[in-house]
């Protein structure tokens, strides 16, 4: 079975897996990283949202064979530095966003990618941007998610994650 090497949360990893095994299962079932959640398996609920080279992807739709040694995968576990919290996570706590918590890793990873994207376009997050977020929250915490993205986005401007794409 083929070996695949890529960077995961800042460190190189090598796994043995079929080329077409989706990254979600490499992370969860082979590497034991359970932050990205399964919600649909077809890239529509976005619960597994993580970053590939700084941009939001759904690992359920990325075959591990598509990754190379230079590709950087970031999951919720690697979003903040050692022991700290990313400004978006802090905003989430400040606004007590989560309910059951199942969608929250994906929501936060999508939010960070959105803020980076609009910052790269030199503009602020709009209601239309927020309307375009596809992450399902079955607890229906959407209004607090919107508030937290605006607050977390503001906080990102004054942080090391200045809202610029890293990849």
């Amino acid at each position, binding site marked *: 079975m083929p070996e695949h090497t890529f960077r995961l949360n800042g460190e190189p990893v090598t796994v043995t897996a079929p080329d077409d095994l989706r990254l979600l299962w490499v992370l969860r079932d082979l590497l034991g990283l359970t932050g990205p959640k399964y919600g649909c398996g077809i*890239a529509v609920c976005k619960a597994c949202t993580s970053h590939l080279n700084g941009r939001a992807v759904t690992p359920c*739709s990325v075959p591990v064979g*598509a990754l190379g040694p230079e590709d950087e995968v970031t999951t919720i576990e690697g979003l903040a530095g050692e022991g700290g919290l990313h400004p978006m996570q802090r905003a989430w706590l400040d606004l007590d966003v989560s*309910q059951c918590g199942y969608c929250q890793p994906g929501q936060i990873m999508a939010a960070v990618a959105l803020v980076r994207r609009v910052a790269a376009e030199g503009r602020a997050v709009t209601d239309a941007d927020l309307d375009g977020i596809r992450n399902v929250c079955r607890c229906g915490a959407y209004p607090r998610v919107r508030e937290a993205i605006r607050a977390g986005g503001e906080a990102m401007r004054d942080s090391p994650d200045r809202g610029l794409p890293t990849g």
Partner: protein
Amino acid sequence: MVGRKDAGRESVEPESVRRESGGLGRRGFLGYVLAAPVLVAGAELAPARAAGGDSAGNGAAGADLLLDLNSVMTAAALPTAHLITVEVGQDGVVSFALPRTEVGQGVTTSTAMLIAEELDVPLERVRVTLADARPELLFNQLTGGSNTTIATYLPIRVAAATARSRLLDAAAGVLGAPAAALVLSGGLVTAPSGRRVGIGELSARASADRTARVAVTLKPDKDFRVIDTPRTRVDALDAVTGRKRFTMDLDVPGAKPTMVCRPPTINGRVSTVDNLARVRAMPGVTDVAVVSTGVAVRAQTFGQCVDAVRALRVTWRPGPVGGRSEAAVLAELRAAEPPLGPAPPLTQTVEDVFTFHFRGNSALEPNCAIADVRADRAEVWSALKSPIVAKKEVAAKLGLPPSAVTVHVVEGGGSFGRKLFCDAALEAAEASRAFGNKPVKLMWHRADDCRQGRVHPMSTSRVRLSHLGPVVLGYAQRHSSVRTDFGHGLGELLTAMAARLPLGDAAFSQTFFHLSQAMPYEFGVTTRLLGEAEAGGGFNTGSMRGVYSPDVTCARELVVDRLARKLGQDPFRFRLGKLREERARAALLKAADVAGWGRSMPAGTAQGIALHAEYHSAVAVVAEIDCRPEVVGRRVRDAVTGPRVTRVVVAVDVGLAVNPSGLRAQLTGAASDGIALALTSSLHLRDGHFLEASWDDYAYTRQWNTPLEVQVVVLPGDGRPPGGAGELGVPAVMAAVACAYARATGTDPTVFPINHGVLSFTPKPTVPPVPASPDDGAARAE
């Protein structure tokens, strides 16, 4: 876990307890200290107590107060309240194994708050876990009916107060000062001399070598410093860092990913499998076996399970639903509708019948469970709201005594009614056994959850209001529903309590219907009856955040609006003039005031107002909707858009709000649910299967449907004990949105959700039963 122990407890004499508690005053209760090496305290609660002005005074429903479902559930839980205990560890951490399930509704946080308040320890020093299935708790381990806080508010406080009392007594000896002179705060006991000792150090000294009764007085409401203050969820940090563990995140040795290849029609059965050997030889696959629900596959990864499920060639026998479509079910519902009878003579009427389609009650976490079955025992992990029933059913399935089955309750990623049932736990146990007693981590694919999972029953509701001019003389509602499954323990509870109910031996569903429906308006003679259609007996049903209430309330409020219109009256003022209770009146007034009811709005937009009272709580909602063509036709990629609810104002009275932040979250979530039920969310039944197979098909509220403004106003509880809130908001929001839609469009909608007639997606195939995962994710990075 100490919460499981009851050894060493003295036998309880309910009569003497009742007698003794009569002299304790309205905040006085009896607790007990359990024989244990550290301090373990529980509550003794008599079944009946006199009412009082403090929130502790009238929390326990007496046998003479069994008027509604929550009183019944609370009364059923009381006799075993003494079996749930608070433990003070030698590290100063207070532990409590909650015999309920946390599925997002916030009960671990509110429970920790009750203990922190009564025991004067910091909230972060209270550790609330979920108790394993404990059959000795009888009816006191069922999470449903928005009953958790109602039923556990007093027992938990009494247990914590008992621990506090013992700690102070123990500290008196250590600090050389009378207990009455000591101050317990922040987990430390301080003497007038300034000497201090931590509760962890006191725990062993405060423990008992034989069980002892302790009379305690609860803290008066006016001294609350934790209860009734907004607190962030205790699991929030774990949730935002990805550390929160759900069932599929647990590392149980040897438990490998397992999925089931399911039939193309509801509850179909395997006839033959043509390629078992070939699928068994696929990469990563370890086991394949036929089970009662399909063909189970076990593999190294879930991705390989998906591949194996898709590769299986199975011949199926159809299920009991057969090839039915929803038109046939509708005809059965019409036939099952109880007769309305003639209208009173010489009166005018407003009457209509409303249709509510099937809805999916999937949480975002799919049905899942881990099972490790051995020849003589089994261990199961799952988010279960009725774990005692799960334990019995798993044991029966495996042919083991219930004592040989351990059921661990795991925090769930949402429930909405689904986790009252143990479908995945049963299936995991069966698969583990079928594979030759190998541990399994079994998960339903989302398509399974949509197509074979439980659904909120399709229903019709006929409402007739009889009136003479502005005087309403009668209200009649005939609700007809596909049979709702109550096999999750609530039925058992109602049976056990039947002798104390005024309804005789009516079926569970009838009993539940009558106990859960209240009429907030003074509408003269009121009759409500439930009819049930078996529809082949083949649907997997379950309630979704409210059993009958969302549909019943929506139908009622729409007809109330129609009568107001016929009489030329404003919908808000008409309701205000008919309300029976002051709480509902205050909620209605507050919602209308905050929303600016009656303000001028552009054509094609409107406000709607609605009211609901249940769970010892009351709620009023004003919704504003925009049905103008440019909004209805707005384009969002791959999205179901349509009319947009632009604003929701909720005024809620739950009595005492233990955690106002959690309460707001519940009502905000209810707004999302109510909008979905009124406008977009339903399942389409065609030829024996539901067309929806994932979140792109099933149009639950998404960001593009979310109101830009949601305001939740928490009304003062006026000393009433906590009511329920988990399901409370859904009926009122659904009804307010429906009423707003009717007013904005000048139509009288009768079919819900209103877009049910338009199929917004191309149905996915039913064979194979699950779709392949896309492989272009990297190209779609954003």
